[in-house]
């Protein structure tokens, strides 16, 4: 069992109504974290977080990074105490 913290920014913050969360995971897997987040925040979060075509984290218009600034993917593993930031990923304008 590990604990992973989350930070929610912009659209993620709007959906959760929170700046962050903490989750206990049985397995140190991003897939488990994603499942817990979508279970907690429902369909809208699922549509934002999961790409139904690939079942990976939705990569278009979003960005998820660990505390070192490295992007995470659904099959990655997580360290105990890690903080993952959920961000809007867009450029230009």
């Amino acid at each position, binding site marked *: 069992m590990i604990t992973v913290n989350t*930070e929610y*920014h*912009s*659209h993620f*913050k*709007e959906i959760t109504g929170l700046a962050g969360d903490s989750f206990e995971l049985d397995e140190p897997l991003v897939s488990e974290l994603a499942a817990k987040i979508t279970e907690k925040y429902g369909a*809208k*979060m699922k*549509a*934002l977080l999961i*790409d*139904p*075509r*690939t079942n*990976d984290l*939705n*990569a*278009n*218009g*979003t*960005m998820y*990074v660990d505390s*070192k*600034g*490295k*992007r995470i*993917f659904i099959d990655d593993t997580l360290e105990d105490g890690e903080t993952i*930031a959920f*961000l*809007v*990923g*867009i*450029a*230009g*304008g």
Partner: protein
Amino acid sequence: MESNLLRVDLTTGEIKSEIIGHEVFEKWVGGSGINNWIMWQHFLTHDINCDPRSPDNIFVFGVGPLAGSGAGSGVKGRITFKSPCYDMFGDSAGGGKFPYMVRFSGYEYIAITGKAPKPVYLHICNDEVSLHDASHLWGKDTKETHEILQRDLGDYPSKTHTLSIGQAGENQVGIAGVVSDALRIHARCGGGAVLGSKNLKAIAVQGSGGIKIKRPEGIMKWSDVFRQSLDANEAVYGFKRRGTLGAVEMYQHIGSHFWRNNQGNKFRGEGITSDNWVKRFHKYSEVCSSDCFIACDAKYKIDGTESEAAKKYVGETFRRPEYLTTGSAAGALDVRDWAEVAHWGKITNDYGIDNQDLSCSISFLMEIKQHGLISDDDVANLFGHSQSLEWGNMDDIEALVESIVYQSNPFGKLFGDGPYKGALRYSEMMGQNFMKYAMYGKGGASFTEEMRPFPTWMNNMAVASRGADHLKGLGLIEKFQRRDLSQIYFGGPEAADLEVPTYKGASTAIIENQVALLNSYGVCMFHWMLDPAGYMPESYYGEAYRSITGVEHDSEMLMRDGERICNLEKAFNSRVGMRREHDTVCERWMWEPCPEGKYPGKVAADMFEPVLDEYYQWRGWDVRSGLQTRAKLEELDLGDVADVLEADGALARG
């Protein structure tokens, strides 16, 4: 596919229409591709080394085949010319309704040459095209110009839509832009100065025709799938609310802003977040072009309660700032109140001036004053009076903006072409080398984002055909660390790995070709970024392109078309003398370690040369000189271009 090109010679007043035949689309796709081809042809009979502000320069407006077709993929028009601020290839995109109204009038391309003896505007009303005195518009900003033309020309046979310059363009400020319907600026490369030098204040268009579509059922089918794909992504709804401002939090988190002339890479203060904008300033969302399934545009109207500075701007209304407007104000200039950031966006649009080069000109001066390299007297000599240069002080910033827009003092004159030429001129004037503080990439163009941790992004800054810019090669695989895309493109994750140079130059080359296609289709880039299927514009959008034009190019052919378009832009720059040594970036990015954020300590020099080598290799260009080879050009059916380059001594030897 056929199209009408309107040619206007402002010197003689001659106006004529030409057909652009199907065979031109077969080779140049449309939109920016055809603009480039028109400009290339022009400079076969005019001196390519002309002063860009002289009558010999050409100004081309063009709109691609998907724009306004009902495909829902957004609309972008494009202007193309020789850049007066960077002295090289110049182009710039802009959205809104003007581009497809040009199509509805029966034209898709407009080529302006010569110089009118006095200020005029061009009125296109379906097939009636005429030049009119614009003395009553001269001196007006883009908003006033638009409103006067709309009022005077009325709503029949359609509402009037405009492309106009403000005071910056009239004064031939090198970094002046051209504004579509008073709202959306074609900011980059100085198109406004070109129109100003030609005494053309505006183009007003009224069109009531339609658009010919080869296979309407094909585009309707494509468009349905496209809409469903966008609808399925909740991130699109976030984007509707925040537009590119959504990037503010991500950039703050990883350290990708451009704070105080990039002395840092995070905003200071708590105020500038997209959340604050949405809560306090957002009034309503809208679509910029009526042919867009996203609708990311939004308006604000300040009532004075939103923030401390809002009291100064009660009643002001404009578009929500885009990220780079925010990056230039809250980043480069350290403005910390949203009302002031929004006001910066509005005044730069109304004056018609590029806020990237403008902010970096101002932040350059603020930084050398901050370091005590110039005295109060030196500053007074620049302005003709004492002038405070306080970071984030909007009154100071506006005074500096006006100096440049109106060319009213030595500072304005030195920096009218942006920070690179400005810093060079000022260093020479003062007998001191200040270039360390000038922030720029290729051509001297500046860009207000932190670049040092991002080798592909940095490569974009060094090689973009229109001068430092992200919208030619768009290094998203790397900045967003998309190892899934890296896998698809290259069969491995390296292009998404910030720690290695592998596939960084290759990413630039491939994405430049794809972006050239999108720009030639005339669509908005945001759909491409937000739609998982959009990443291969040659196949996915290619289907829509084929339905509309009947140009039956498969994905492979379209990628070659994109590559051909990039090669013509490159050839233009080679003709004006650009070589490998011009594909570079400023001293701070190259050598000064990234000071903060998630990737501290990075400098461009870590990977710059291997990435540049790889870029040339993937392009099939000569690595030593950076020049194109005959073999590559002939492979792209550009043997005639190779002949021109050879005659100019601008083709790689051997």
